[in-house]
Each structure stands twice: as C-alpha cells, then as structure tokens.
C-alpha cells in the first residue's frame, strides 16, 4: 500500500512537471532577446535576462485598455454565468415537473452543437439587438453555458430534499431557500464554475473577433493575434504579452482553489 502511494505520488509529480514545463519555458523565454530565442543549440534560461520585451508589450498597443475590456467582459460574464447556472441547475434538480425534464433534455441536446454552427444566427440576433461593436456582444451569447447548468444541477441533486422541506416548514419562500440555503452550500461548485468561466471568457477569441470592430473595444486576445503577421511573428513581444495575459487567470485560481476543498452538505439536516 505504501509503495503504491509512493508510486502514485511520483507519477503525479512527473505528470505535473510535464504539464508545467511548457509554461515554465514560455515564461523564461519571455526574458530572452530575439537572437537568443533562435539560438542553436537551444538554451533554457536566458543568458542576459531583460524586461525589454515586457516594456515593448505594454507600450506596443493600448495594453491597459485591452486588459480593461477583457476584464469587463470576463468579470461580468462570469457573474451572470454563475447566477444563471446556479438558478437553472437548482430548478432542474429540485422541481419535479415533466416539462422541466423535457427542457433539460433539450438543453442537453444543445451541447451536441459546436458553437461555430450556431454562431451566425447568434450573431444576427446580437446585431439586430443593436449590440454589434459592443462589449455586451461578447458577454450575452456566452453566459448560457450548459456545462455550468449541468455542473450545478448535478450538485443540487445530491442535496437532500429534507433540507428544503425543513426550510419550507420554517416559512422560507423558494427565493429565500435558494439564496440563503442553497448558494452557501454550493460554494465550491461556484468556485469551480467561476474559474472555468473566467478562463473561458478571458481567452475568448471568436466572439470578440466577429462582434467588435473598433480598436478601443478590442480584447487582449485580438491584440495578441496582431503580433502574428503574414510573413513574420514578433516572438519576443508575443511571449511577454502572453505571460502578462496569463497573470489574471493565475490570480483567480489562487484565490478560489481552496473553495473547492471545503463543503459539508449534510450540516443542515438533523437525523
């Protein structure tokens, strides 16, 4: 048993290192100049590390504005996604109506369609709503994620119905039950979905590409793409800018990862 645990631990560390190595290589390469990046044989660490690439990345384009645009889309979309997914998941899990089951199957069926297939009709709706070239065009089509609804639904099905019955007997209405009872119990699921949603929206490229046309509305991913030209790639700036765009996602993960570990579902039910 102990040797199994040691083996598992070793394999875990090995796979972690394999997973992290490309990111590590990206970060150390971002401190290299253009010549060193293509030197042969390759070097892992820079011989003359410098922040020059970061200075260029920050002043090459309107980095602050693009970061602000991306942050706006990401944060607003994440908040809406959390609210919608938790409410929808709760309703699908806890209310027993036949039409809810039908709705759930229809919603599940939408996961069979790639986003690209429904992108044109979604874009038409966005345009007709007058949201073209608005940051809300990058938010609204993305907040209805079935992944989030499914995650929350599966969690809420594991909560004993007795908890809700007890709350109803105590006089709580459905809204109060959801806000005061269910939401605190699903903190870890909200944290997981929040991390996923933050990452999805922060890295989102397609919706900003097709729904934004003004430079002052562009997001970081659109801006990063301009560093790859028709015949040349500005590798040094691209590496530094990529590291800069990774930082907010890393901060969010550090902030919320502990939430995944702490939940006690049965704390409210007396035996």
């Amino acid at each position, binding site marked *: 048993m102990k040797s199994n645990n040691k083996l598992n631990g070793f394999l875990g560390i090995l796979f972690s290192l394999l997973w992290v190595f490309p990111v590590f290589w990206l970060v150390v390469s971002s401190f290299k*100049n*253009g*010549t060193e*990046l*293509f*030197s*042969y044989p390759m070097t892992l660490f820079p011989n003359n590390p410098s922040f020059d690439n970061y200075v260029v990345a920050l002043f*090459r*384009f309107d980095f*602050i*504005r693009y*970061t*602000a*645009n991306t*942050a*706006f889309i990401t*944060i607003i979309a994440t908040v809406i996604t959390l609210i919608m997914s938790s409410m929808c998941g709760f309703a699908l899990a806890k209310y027993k109506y036949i039409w809810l089951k039908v709705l759930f199957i229809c919603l599940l069926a939408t996961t069979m369609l790639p986003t690209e297939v429904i992108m044109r009709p979604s*874009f038409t709706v966005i*345009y007709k709503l007058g949201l*073209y*070239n608005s*940051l809300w065009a990058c938010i609204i089509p993305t907040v209805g994620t079935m992944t989030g609804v499914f995650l929350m639904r599966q969690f809420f099905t594991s909560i004993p119905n007795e908890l809700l019955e007890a709350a109803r007997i105590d006089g709580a209405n459905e809204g109060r039950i959801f806000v005061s009872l269910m939401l605190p119990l699903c903190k870890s699921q909200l944290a997981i979905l929040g991390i996923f949603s933050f990452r999805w929206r922060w890295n989102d490229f397609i919706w900003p*590409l*097709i729904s934004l*046309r*003004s*430079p*002052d*509305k562009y997001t970081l991913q*659109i801006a990063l*793409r*301009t*560093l*790859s*030209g*028709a*015949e*040349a790639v*500005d590798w*040094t700036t691209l590496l530094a800018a990529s590291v800069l765009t990774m930082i*907010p996602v890393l*901060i*969010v993960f*550090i*902030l919320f990862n502990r939430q995944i570990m702490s939940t006690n579902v049965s704390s409210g039910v007396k035996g």
Partner: protein
Amino acid sequence: MKKVLALLLCLMVSFSVFANGASESSKKEVKTLEILLSDDTLEGGAMAAIVDKWNSTNDNFKVEINEIAYGDMKTQIMNRASVNELPALVKTTEMDAYADFLLPLDDKSLKQSDFLRDVTRDGKLLATPINSTAVGMLVNKSAFDQAGVSYPTTEEERWTWDEFIEAVNTVVEKTDCEYGIVIDHSAQRISTLLYQFGMQIFDPNDASKIAFDSPQTKEGLEFLLDIYKKDISPASVGLGAENAQSTYKTGKVAVHMSGNWVLNDYSNNITNFEWDPALMPYKTDKATCLGGNYLYAFDGTGCEEEAKEFIEWFYKDENYSLYCSNGNYLPSKIGVDATYTVKGMDIFNMELNATSAQPSFDDSVKNSHPGESYGNALRDAVDKAIAGELDADGVIDYFTNSILENYTNVSLK
C-alpha cells in the same frame, strides 16, 4: 497574500468599469476615415506615420488606423460587410475577392500606368498597389566568409543553380552550417525556383492554354526535390512542419530563400551571425515573383470622397516615398525612390529589374479569372512529392488537374 490578490482583483474590476465608462462617453465630432490593415506595426509603423502626417496637416477629416491580425482580415471584412459597416479603406493582400464592392478610382489623378502591378479590373482602376515585395535570397554571410565562398551581388556574379549547390555544399562542409538552403513553405517561392528553370503556368501566346507540363518544369521540379532528397534542405521545412525563418535564424543554414519582407525582422533579431541579401541563381531565366499589398476603398461606406482624397494625397511622391522608406517597402509607383534603413533593398530592386515577364503574365491570367482559384495546389503537390507520394510527373499532373478543375475556359497546351 490572498488579501493582496483579492484587492488586486477588486481594483481590476473597478478600473475596467471606469475605463469602459470613459470610452463610451467620448464622441467624435470630426468625420473619421478608417483604414483597416494588418502588420503595420510589425513592419515599422509606416502607415501610422503617414496617418499622423495627414492628421497634423489636414482638418477636413481625420484618419485612423484599425490594425488587426493578417489572418483575421477576411473574417473581419466579410463580417462587417454582412452588417453594412465596411471600413472606408483597406490595405491587404487580397483584392479580387472584393472587386465587386470596390470604389473605382478613375476620376482621380491616379492611373494604371503609374503603377508596377495590374490593379485594373473590367477597365476600372479599383485599387492601388501600396507596396511591392520580391522573392529573394538571404545568405549567412558569416558562414560564407568563414568558408571562403563568395556570393553574387552583381549581375555578372549571379550563380547558376548548379554553382549555387556547389557553393552551399562547400559552406556546409567547412562551417557549422547543417543545411545549404531553407525555402519558405510557399507556392510563390517554389514557383520562383521553377520560373528560373523556364517554367510557364500559362502560355504567353495564349492565356487559355496551360503550359505547366514541359521539360523545363520537370527539370525544375526534379532539381527541387533533389535538394530535399540529398538533405541540402531539411524536408521538415519543405513540408512546413518547421518554419524556414526560425530555422535560418539559428545560424545553421547557409541560405534562406524568402523575400524582402524579412529584412526588418532580421535587422532587429539576428545578431549572432552576419547576413546579407544575394542575387538568386538561375537556370535559363532570371526570375522573381512579385507580391505586395493593395490599398483600396469600399463603395457605400459614406466616406467615398474622403477615401479618394486620402488615396490621392498618399500617392503624392513625397508622401509615398516617406511611406516606403519608413516601412522598407519596394515602391509600386513608378519613378518613386525610397531611403531605406535596412541593408540589401537594392538587391531586391535588381531582382525586380532583371526578372522575366512570365511570373507577372501568369499573375495577370489568374487575375482574369475572378472568383476562381486553384489555391495552394502547387505547394500541396510538392509537399506530397517531398513526402515520397509523388514524383515530378505526379506533381505536374496534380497541378494541371487542379487548374483544369477550378478554372473555366482553359485547356492543356
């Protein structure tokens, strides 16, 4: 630590809200002409400099640049066309796909005879060639000097392809270089080499005849495939699995067959060895393939007069020369000179002056088939040949069949 991170997150939220509030509240009072383009910053910011000059000297309307990725140009244009919000001006490599939507420029002072490249369709001047690019060669000067091998910078010194192979083999033998040449994974570069063997895609006497199947083409293809078989060039680069520019920058390759567009990048990013442009070899013909971007205006944007006014101002000699100098571009307007900050542009000018007419003729035939394209059929066929699936005859059959399938009113010679 977590409180610091949480505070940082809150600051980011507040900033994003304020930043977006500020952007929404600003209103433009002066009409603004938008130029949609790509790669301007990568290539030295030449258009940005010209736009600054316009904005500082003209009050009737302002011009702004909207720079996006080259790979996203088509998506943006098609998308904006679907919502009727096309940009006033576009600088890009593709023109014929949008020919039906372009604003004719004939009522201004510009004429087709002013330019090196054909921008007339159905008798109308629909665009202007904003710059020219030429395929050429960059040598690893340090390696050539170390090996004691010279490279051609004058017409008299120009190599034959056999002399070229001998030269790069010597360089590889006597230096750390591992390969003699890397060629960009591009139909244009492949075509350039084949043109130098006397290849013709279309018959110069009858544009409806495909003349690709010829002894000259076969000889050129066999020579090209030999380069990969004998490991003078790495097959991984030939197949596009590795990038030719990145490989050349390692300093382990004697020659890179590319074009003048790399000069800026190489000037800034190659410091571990010396490099120099050199004249390309030839077998029967001296040849280079011309490329470049177009600048054109879309019709129906509401800024047609302003767009034409800006284009006419742009092509005044002093302004166009400034643009070409800042971007290290070869001028497309006849009679305009530029002062370059990178070395070697004169070599590419020499290539342009010495090239046979066949590459331009084939281009003009392609332009006369709007909406029809054989894509990268030649490159795809050569990929298969490098991988061992086809031989030279197979490449010829593949390519000619692609043209026959995609072009109307053409036949084999």
